[in-house]
């Protein structure tokens, strides 16, 4: 007899919750049974669409058949929900970042570093087929030994100013992905960081105490380097590239486009535009990371990113924030 798919719950009916919820509902290896979110309107609509019930968190966790929880609540609630679910012995899929406060995250280290139930923190770029192909090229040795990395990560348009104060700032909210991609590709812990950042896109972002444009340089013990280009507004789509320079060549992950159609006319050559949002650009990676979570629930694999990856990325976010504030190089060990 075919075993039933493991029962999971979704916590959070916002933008990320909708993405993970729809993917979970369509994934035959998961049984999305519950949606937990106190916001009546949006939660009822999404629950209806996903065909799930809406218990309280306590009720859901009390269900002995429930084996996993997808956490896509507001970032500042991630850690508390993660701990609650782990204590109830439920496997956890948590949207990045695990927390915005490094000291608080470190305080929870004993429970998170070897958790009683599996914990996966969703750094989705590790599942993107383009970045995976780049990683495979580097592993194949086709470009020799990796020497430096230039990451370009430009959002199409800034989030609403109301999001900025709760975001933890650009480095914790946005660059955090690039810190993790760098760690994944270069496989070495940086020793020093330096960054400059400006508010060039929207003065309201600056008024909220944040920046919207940055260049970051990470330096590794081996002398290798990684640069990160960030802006909150590209005006031409979601620009997500990685250039890896090696001793025998370079491998570049470029931008997929909404179609392969190029047009030539009197004005020149026009390529189809880049994807306009992360939802579209990374749709495949969001599905793939749920497959990974299904593998984790089946006991077939361990989560590829959890507490350590989250902590290390958050350390870099803090170090970079400090560098921008002080105008100095910050040693990672000092964070």
């Amino acid at each position, binding site marked *: 007899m075919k075993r039933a798919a493991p029962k999971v719950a979704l916590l959070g009916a916002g933008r990320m919750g909708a993405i993970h919820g729809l993917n979970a509902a369509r994934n035959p290896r998961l049984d999305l049974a519950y949606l937990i979110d106190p916001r009546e309107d949006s939660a009822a609509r999404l629950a209806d669409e996903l065909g799930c019930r809406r218990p309280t968190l306590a009720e859901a966790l009390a269900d002995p058949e429930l084996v996993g929880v997808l956490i896509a609540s507001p970032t500042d609630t991630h850690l508390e929900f993660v701990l609650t679910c782990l204590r109830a012995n439920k496997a956890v899929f948590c949207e990045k970042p695990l927390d915005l406060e490094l000291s608080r995250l470190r305080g929870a280290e004993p429970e998170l570093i070897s958790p009683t139930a599996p914990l996966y923190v969703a750094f989705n770029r590790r599942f993107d087929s383009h970045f995976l192909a780049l990683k495979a090229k580097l592993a194949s040795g086709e470009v020799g030994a990796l020497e*430096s990395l*230039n990451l370009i990560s430009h959002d199409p348009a800034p989030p609403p100013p109301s999001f900025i104060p709760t975001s933890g700032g650009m480095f914790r909210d946005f660059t955090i992905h690039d810190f993790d991609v760098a760690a994944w590709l270069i496989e070495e812990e940086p020793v020093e960081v330096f960054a*400059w950042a400006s508010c060039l*896109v929207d003065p309201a972002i600056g008024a909220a105490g944040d920046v919207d444009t*940055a*260049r970051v340089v990470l330096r590794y013990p081996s*002398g290798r380097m990684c640069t990160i280009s960030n802006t909150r507004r590209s*005006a031409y789509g979601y620009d997500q590239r990685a250039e890896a320079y090696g001793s025998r060549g*370079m491998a570049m992950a470029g931008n997929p486009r909404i179609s392969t159609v190029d047009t030539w006319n009197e004005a020149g050559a026009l390529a189809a535009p880049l994807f306009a949002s992360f939802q579209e650009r990374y749709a495949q990676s969001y599905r793939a990371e749920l497959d990974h979570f299904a593998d984790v629930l089946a006991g077939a694999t361990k989560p590829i990113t959890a507490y350590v990856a989250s902590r290390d990325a958050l350390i870099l976010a803090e170090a970079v924030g400090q560098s921008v504030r002080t105008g100095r190089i910050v040693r990672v060990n000092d964070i």
Partner: protein
Amino acid sequence: MLHVALFGAGRIGAIHARNAAAHPALSLKYVVDPQGHAAARLAREVSAEVVAIDDALADPEVAGVIIASPTGSHLDQCLRAAASGNAIFCEKPIDLDLARARAAASALTGARLLLDFNRRFDPHFQALKRRLDAGAVGALETLNITSHDPAPPPVSYIAHSGGLFRDMTIHDFDTARWLLGEAPVEVFATASCLIDPAIGRAGDVDTAKVLLRTPSGKICLISNSRRSGYGYDQRIEAFGSAGAARVGNVTLSAVSTWTEVGAVADKFENFFIDRYADAYRLAMDHFAQVLEGAEPKVGLNEALAALALAEAAEQSSRIGAPVRL
């Protein structure tokens, strides 16, 4: 005809000699180089005469000099040419020592000096500049310049090159200044010797990442390597409020091939002699205009500013902190 003399019959001297000789308004009269053999060979090729520097400068028919000698001689020869009233076409950099170059500035202020930052004359980079000036991407916010050489120069060259920042990044400093339209006031650089330990033993670096910042908060990132392993990688991306503009690499041909292993585009132009061949010709065209009375588009101020950025970058990488200009 406007008569000119060439100082320096090395690799870059030969490029300028051929371009001057082929120019309809210019006549390359003299080749000057203490290495007689090289001078004689080049002079024969371009139908010029080999003379001593004093003789070339004393000839009232000579209206301009092209300085393509070793970098250490540039400044001295600029001063001598200026003193004899010649217009000057000088290879970059003007000198390896900022203090010395600044001290010489007053003697060069009135001179008609064209500093050959070849990228300013490259049709691709010029097209980018025109797009930016036309507002094609809105207000410029950030710039990423990728400048990777195919292979490092011999270590014997490194020793008297002035170091990566003065020798190689100097081009990118000038390009950044030109495109940003605003003078950078702060520099940060981090650099390593990853390619050849002999470069490190010669006291230099071969891989660097540099940041420049302007008063309005514009940021420029420069990526440098002395060895790409895949050709001469020369790209610029300019990010603005309404989009981005990119200059890609020029390939040897427009042919791509598809096979079982994937799509293969042709290689990049091998090195600066090939990639910037048009730029060198256009720079010589501009020198002919200067000889006819035009203001040089790139001169002493640009030479000093790029050198100041190079010194600041070197200092930054040494002390591990940003340096204000």
